[in-house]
């Protein structure tokens, strides 16, 4: 039985013939090779695969992060809600697609409060104080951090635990109310308790946000993702419902990976 509601929703992201290469002189060597996929709206999509298969490279193409490094070449098209992302300005694109990194990276010079609204402040987006207060409270409540930090909002976040810092970083991404949140192994630096808190959080967030999650951890993908991609040597080998992929993988390489034969 498929849920008819999720089936009729348009994909939030459409990736078409995406190539990423780290060496503009050697175009034959791709970290991401000809990947095409539609990312479903308000679902968690996991990207799995052995180390070096191109998961991060794919994820970072989705918000044009690669533009920071002149040596990286990306080809192909990506549409966000039918808009070609190469036509959007940096700020337009990144308000719609937030990103969370592998190790927590709150801005060390800013207070917890400033971190949450950093996207607004650093871009010079003017707001009234009560508007800002609201965004801070809502974002921190969304990541279940409000009760833990509401008395220390104007302190720097360096006393927070790793898991709390990572939730702060998710709050910083949520503050823009994006359509999509990209997460690159967000729990790999965290202990199991902090990890399960973040997993619970992601499941809650998918009501309002489309989530793309790179993970090394197959059990994590199985626990929380609705759709899964399996990548190998830059190629998208298999993409489908997580349940189907785990119970009945259609490609031999996926099966071997899931059985722990490599990676």
């Amino acid at each position, binding site marked *: 039985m498929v849920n008819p509601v999720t089936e009729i929703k348009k994909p939030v992201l459409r990736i078409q013939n995406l190539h990423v290469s780290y060496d503009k002189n050697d175009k034959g060597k791709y970290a991401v090779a000809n990947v095409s996929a539609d990312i479903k709206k308000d679902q968690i999509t996991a990207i799995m695969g052995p180390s070096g298969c191109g998961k991060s490279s794919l994820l970072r193409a989705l918000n044009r992060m690669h533009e920071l490094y002149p040596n990286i070449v990306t080809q192909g098209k990506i549409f966000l809600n039918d808009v070609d992302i190469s036509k959007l300005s940096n700020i337009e694109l990144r308000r719609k697609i937030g990103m969370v990194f592998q190790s927590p990276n709150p801005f060390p010079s800013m207070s917890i409060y400033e971190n949450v609204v950093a996207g607004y402040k*650093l871009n010079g987006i003017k707001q009234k104080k009560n508007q800002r207060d609201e965004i801070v409270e809502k974002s921190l409540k969304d990541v279940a951090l409000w009760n833990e930090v509401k008395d220390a909002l104007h302190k720097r976040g360096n006393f927070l635990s790793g898991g709390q810092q990572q939730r702060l970083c998710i709050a910083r991404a949520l503050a823009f109310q994006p359509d999509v949140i990209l997460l690159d192994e967000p729990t790999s630096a965290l202990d199991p308790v902090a990890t399960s808190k973040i997993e619970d959080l992601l499941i809650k967030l998918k009501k309002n946000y489309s989530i793309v999650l790179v993970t090394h951890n197959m059990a994590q993908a199985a626990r929380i993702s609705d759709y899964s991609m399996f990548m190998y040597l830059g190629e998208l080998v298999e993409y489908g419902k997580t349940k189907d992929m785990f119970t009945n993988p259609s490609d031999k390489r996926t099966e071997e990976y899931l059985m722990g034969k490599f990676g």
Partner: protein
Amino acid sequence: MEDQKVIVDKLSSKSKDARRKASNGIFHGLVILFSLITITPIILIILNLVEKGYRQINLHFFTQIAPDSWDAMQAISQGKLIPGGILNGITGTFMMVGMASIIAIPLGIMIGIFLYENGNKRYANFIRDITDILQGAPSIVLGLIAYLWVVKYITHGFSALAGAVSLAIMMLPLIIRPTEETFKMIPNTIKEAGVALGVPYHKIILKVMMPTGLSGLMTGILLALSRVIGETAPLMLTALGSQYVSFDITKPASAIPLLIWNFYNDPNLVNLIWSSSLSLVAMVLALNLISKRIASKRK
């Protein structure tokens, strides 16, 4: 059997303990010895300066200009303290070091950021080499260069501006390298966090990287200040010295180290070198301590 083995284990661990204790003892001894060797000259210098200079240190010493030789001679012959102070030196030092900072701090930070951004490109390495050469250049040579550039062609005479330029050239490399090192120490993901929020690159540098590395930048700046505040040789060729308090940057100016040199060369004023040196050392020490404090707060 079992018991015996335990006893043997205990014995051997005891002798290991003893050996460890002995080597610990030697190590502690060395630490104390080396600390004494390094701290003794500093303590002696300060004790000497305090002993010889404390009598001259009073409010007048900081609010009056340097006395002339005649007044000093009369005071000495009457068994009184030498009148006057080092106000013209203090104002000159603050003016020239201040101007040098206005030139060198923004420029040094910009060049440091440029080197950080351009990592291992050929021209970046070239600038790094130049910076190292500049840092190793004898300060009197830098004074000569400021003389050639500023004294001869801009102010047409000895001037505070020329003095400030010579000090600024000295400060530059001392600010450039710590700036680059500080930026390199900031994790790349902090920068990427800014990029992921759509923040323009120059704002990431100004509003994320600079505040994050602030203590590192401050340390470099304070050490550069403490380095140039006592410089004498380049100022002799540029600012020359002045008997009066003057804030005209196109005119000669005094500085505390210049005053010390003047006092040293005047038999009637020579007693003032101790109190002047004590003030200078206190300023340098304060700058150093502040920068150490800031540096130790960095994680």
